[in-house]
């Protein structure tokens, strides 16, 4: 906090008014706190660099849609489609996330303290220096990284119960770019046929270290026990997976 932090009480506000107020406020105060957020959608939509928002409560779907550089920190769970088609920025969720987090995101970072839902990181892409990253502390649902075309997903797989799996089924199905790092492996039958296990190299380990450190910093956790060398890396079999499927006619 410290510098002039502007607080908005979101109680009973509809999303259009709330998002307008956030945009107007951000023109003057780059640091904003939202209280009493109860499911309002699209918070942070399209917001540019330097805007920082702390969110208390439960933001609604499509949080950070098309976001363009802003930073959101959520003290609570987030719902579906966090960071939908996001271009740039950072999202820190002190809780868990719903389905399709990071749908088609092209840049920026999403850190989730707990678990993420189905189809997370679906169709994530990358472009030149833009490389989106999703880091989650727990596990993910089915179709993690489906159609993934770029960027990286890291699952730390912490606090899993005995019978709980790190990922659901169809992990990396349709993948044609990007990387999935799992702290532990996913069963072969759960892996999409377009994804393949690849050996970690030095760059991967440095990359993982960096993001594990950031995770421990954001969520104030001691992760020294996590060994980046033991992570399993999955990549696309190739970037033109359906090349030979058709016969032109």
């Amino acid at each position, binding site marked *: 906090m410290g510098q002039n932090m502007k607080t908005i009480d979101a109680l009973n506000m509809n999303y259009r008014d709330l998002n307008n107020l956030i945009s107007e406020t951000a023109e003057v105060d780059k640091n904003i706190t939202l209280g009493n957020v109860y499911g309002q959608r699209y918070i942070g939509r399209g917001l540019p660099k330097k805007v920082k928002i702390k969110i208390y409560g439960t933001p609604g779907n499509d949080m950070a849609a098309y976001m363009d550089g802003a930073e959101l920190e959520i003290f609570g769970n987030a719902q579906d489609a966090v960071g939908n088609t996001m271009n740039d920025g950072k999202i820190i969720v002190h809780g868990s996330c719903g389905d399709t987090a990071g749908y088609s995101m092209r840049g920026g970072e999403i850190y989730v303290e707990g678990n993420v839902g189905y189809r997370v990181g679906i169709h994530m892409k990358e472009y030149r220096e833009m490389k989106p990253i999703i880091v989650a502390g727990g596990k993910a649902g089915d179709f993690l990284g489906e159609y993934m075309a770029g960027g990286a997903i890291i699952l730390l797989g912490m606090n899993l119960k005995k019978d709980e799996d790190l990922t659901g089924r169809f992990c990396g199905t349709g993948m044609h770019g990007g990387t999935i790092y799992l702290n532990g492996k996913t069963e072969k039958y759960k892996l999409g046929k377009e994804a393949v296990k690849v050996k970690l190299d030095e760059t991967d380990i440095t990359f993982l270290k960096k993001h594990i450190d950031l995770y421990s910093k954001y969520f104030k956790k001691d992760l020294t026990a996590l060994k980046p060398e033991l992570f399993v890396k999955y990549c696309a079999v190739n970037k033109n997976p359906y090349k030979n499927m058709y016969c*032109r006619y």
Partner: protein
Amino acid sequence: MSIDFNTPAFEVIRDEKRCIQCKVCVQQCANSVHAYDEEEDIVKADDMKCVNCHRCVLLCPTRALKIKKYSLEFKENANWTSTAINEIYKQAQTGGVLLSSMGNPKPFPIYWDKMLLNASQVTNPSIDPLREPMETKVMLGRKPEKLEFDLNGKLITEIPPQLELNIPIMFSAMSYGSISRNAHESLARAASELGIFYNTGEGGLNRDFYKYGKNTIVQVASGRFGVNKDYLNAGAAIEIKIGQGAKPGIGGHLPGEKVDEDVSATRMIPEGSDAISPAPHHDIYSIEDLRQLIYSLKEVTDYKKPVFVKIAAVHNAAAIASGIARAGADAIVIDGFRGGTGAAPTRVRDNVGIPVELALATIDQRLREEGIRNQVSIIAAGSIRNSADIVKAIALGADAVYIASAAVIALGCHMCHACSTGKCNWGIATQEPELVKRLNPDIMYKRLINLISAWNHEIQEILGGMGINAIDSLRGNRLMLRGIDINDKELEILGIKYAGE
């Protein structure tokens, strides 16, 4: 390896008396059909590779070339046609899914040709558009339930965003990648000059084309290529592509070899990487989810741009359209099964979906019955071939139409159906610089202007004949239509009477 059972589809006929061995055909054919044989000093042709695009025929300086259907016949059989047999040969050889380009070529009924237009005689005088005012301007967008004014007569109702079209025709979505930069530039410049709109397709918008934004509709499809805040705000409207008439229910797939530097920068993906659009938007599994996407787009563009939703004409299009209207869309685009495409699985292209005429009629009817027709505009698409089709579409209930095949034909497309090879000899469906150069946007955009202006004239002429002086009075005016050579059920669905009734 087994022998190739396929025979050529076309035969290249060269009149040796006329051929001067200038080798123009050799240079012009990107399919390498023609080759010069030095020893014999003649130009030879490999028929097998010819797609019948007419490029060599038109450029041959001595008119020495003709292309004919290859006259090899199978034993006559109405069931096992040569197409059916050849398709099996192809698939048995490659194991591939058949891929085709352009629209459904099968002889399904074309209802435009089964509807006739009215004209006034005696009681309601016809109007001469050359000398009397004739309005073809339309406004696309949600219309308010009622208008409210304050005591000083000032309008206080908030009017939802509208697109103003000088002529009720727009250029339909063709992505940068599926068609060339020069083709895009021609469409953009023509739209700007005509006061209409062109559509980026799902391939993003090249920075060089942001200047045509006032006349641009930006598309958002499931792959979200090139979609960011700048892109969404760059155009005058946003179109969510749910489906496409040529391949309902199927996603898109631009092969990596077409993703060169320029296409990569426009789509914002790495060069050479496949651009895969999943079949559904994975954030839309319901009408409520569609509403969520519509409003996320409105939120990020400050509610200033109309949002269109495009669907393929399928069996229950009317119910879906009602959902789309209720989800908050400003316009519905209904794309019939004859709509063109750069590439679609042949079986889907030829067998899935319904004619736009029927879908349009039922959608307009359904929205009227539900009392929500004013909430959305309807744009009809999927093989509009001429101005009479447009007049009929508007009389069936459309506010405007989209054209794409007709537009590329104006740009020189010869309907060879070979777009998916990426070797379009006319510089349209290709990214090869040598081929793209063949399409000169400075010349070609004028051909588009010619076409649309001519059609506009014809529309005015037909309207005048009906005694109508504004296109708005034609919309949904089905009394201006009569059916011919169709059955009662078809008449009922189209909501029209039989000729003579």
